[in-house]
């Protein structure tokens, strides 16, 4: 079936470096994508989203890139800080095929070393 998955389960970076977290999806009908951050013991927290008619969207220190040709999504975090350490999930939705249902990837554990 259709699925969303992450390339790397763990990522370790130095404080101040830029981080890139990748996500592959397989549903060509996906029209909306979200990145969530989940800290230990907490619920997923919305970071940034992007619609399928865009290829880039920027937030505060974060940028999401969408490449529909290869069905790839990435989250870039600039000047990574220790507080960015968490598990990051991508999620996709296809309004046409599954309504408001989000399909989540497996998650990438980001560790920021001071």
């Amino acid at each position: 079936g259709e699925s969303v998955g992450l390339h790397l389960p763990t990522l370790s970076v130095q404080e101040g470096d830029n981080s890139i977290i990748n996500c592959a999806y397989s549903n060509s009908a996906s029209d909306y994508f979200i990145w969530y951050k989940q800290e230990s013991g907490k619920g997923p927290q919305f970071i940034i989203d992007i619609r399928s008619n865009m290829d880039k969207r920027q937030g505060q220190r974060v940028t999401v890139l969408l490449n529909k040709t290869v069905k790839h999504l990435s989250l870039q975090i600039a000047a990574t800080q220790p507080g960015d350490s968490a598990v990051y999930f991508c999620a996709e939705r296809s309004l046409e095929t599954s309504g408001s249902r989000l399909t989540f990837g497996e998650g990438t554990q980001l560790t920021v070393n001071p």
Partner: protein
Amino acid sequence: DARVTQTPRHKVTEMGQEVTMRCQPILGHNTVFWYRQTMMQGLELLAYFRNRAPLDDSGMPKDRFSAEMPDATLATLKIQPSEPRDSAVYFCASGRRLAGEETQYFGPGTRLLVL
């Protein structure tokens, strides 16, 4: 700062007992989601409601799980009877669709342990 609230935050129970989890969505949000998170399966959607009506409960085991929205400010998820394999973190999320976007905001979760 509007947030989704969930109670209880932690629940330990014995196999066979009924478990009820509650969720208060963000005021003004008309969609409520129930998720389950385990190490093995990750985040799974159990069910969701829009305007208090169930739209999709295909992810929920029907024989023991039930989800309801008695009113717009309360969603419940019940397990009866509970089993050890139900041990997980259960998240509620709420959202409101605007121009095709529907960001889901998650609560802190209920950590359930069934012995």
